[in-house]
């Protein structure tokens, strides 16, 4: 095989470089890979998610548990699967709110609970157990407030009350309002005849 002297070697290497540059151009694989990222795509997520929030006094203020938590970079929302929230009060048992799915706004001020929602507050001294069934509840965690335009049922056995539209403040003083079509049902037991 004939040996190439100095000049021809440079020429040969130069030709190879041009050729490979041309091939790269041909295949178009030199541009950075611009895979089309869908607009609303998550930037981080978590499975088996738990978040505790403490009050200034260092006591539990709220707790959020979800099967799955997904955060989206474009609008900053956090999507939750089977969220279960605990809102703690000093004097009464926590309010426990759960739903099928939930969306927390970017600033964390608004939480939309979609589908069937169950609100539960255990009995304790001075207060009775309270269970509320409703749908599509809008919660404002910071001010312990929730509302819905949908049907709501308030059960405090043996009594129950239903209505359409509800406003609930679940921090002291706890207050609940049913906005229309209200129907109450109270069982009575005779006590002492006069």
């Amino acid at each position, binding site marked *: 095989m004939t040996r190439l002297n100095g000049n021809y070697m440079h020429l040969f290497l130069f030709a190879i470089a041009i050729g490979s540059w041309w091939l790269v151009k041909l295949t178009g694989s030199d541009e950075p890979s611009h895979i089309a990222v869908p607009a609303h795509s998550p930037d981080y997520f978590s499975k088996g998610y738990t978040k505790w929030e403490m009050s200034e006094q260092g006591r539990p203020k709220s707790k959020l548990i979800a099967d799955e938590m997904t955060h989206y970079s474009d609008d900053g929302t956090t999507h939750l699967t089977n969220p279960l929230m605990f809102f703690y009060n000093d004097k*009464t048992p926590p309010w426990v709110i759960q739903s099928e799915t939930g969306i927390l706004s970017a600033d964390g001020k608004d939480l939309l609970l979609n589908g069937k929602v169950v609100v539960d507050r255990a009995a304790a001294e*001075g*207060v*009775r157990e*309270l269970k509320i069934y409703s749908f599509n509840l809008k919660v404002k965690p910071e001010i312990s407030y929730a509302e819905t335009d949908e049907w709501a049922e*308030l059960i*405090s*056995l*043996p*009594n129950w*009350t239903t*209505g359409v539209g509800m406003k609930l403040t679940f921090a*002291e*003083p*706890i*207050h*609940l*309002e*049913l*906005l*229309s*079509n*209200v*129907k*109450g*049902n*109270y*069982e*009575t*037991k*005779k*006590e*002492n*005849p*006069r």
Partner: protein
Amino acid sequence: LESDSDQPIIIDSDTATYDDVKAISTYTGNVISIQGSIRVNSDKLVVYFIDGEADKLVFTGNLAKFKQTPHEGAKDIVGEALTGEHYPKKNLLILIDKATVWRENGVYSSDFIEYDLKTSLVKAGEKESTNKRVHVILQPKEKEQPPAAEQPAKGSK
């Protein structure tokens, strides 16, 4: 009716609020509360609970009205007042201010009437105060028509 006090109290209204600490429910707007044959129509109804039971119901209206069927087949007893207090466990209804009860042939008016939902007994006025004056009208019972046979034949002298 005898069984009224064993029936649940069912309330319909436009809106309602529930105060957890005071254990009070307040119903407002076209409020209808029914317990057996007892029916109360009012503008507002406040239910006070003791141990989860409706202990006292205070209704207000202009005027709030109530009715009850004392027993099967009997004529309804009807009443009205600015304020009323219903004590389900004591079978007691107290009508206050512009209170009137129509019972059989009697009309009882006063600013304070106690009506026993079990015995249909009406007690109007208050012993302690003279300003709860009582006004009673007792209609004479309609004369019973003599049976047809004894009636003189028409046209005969």
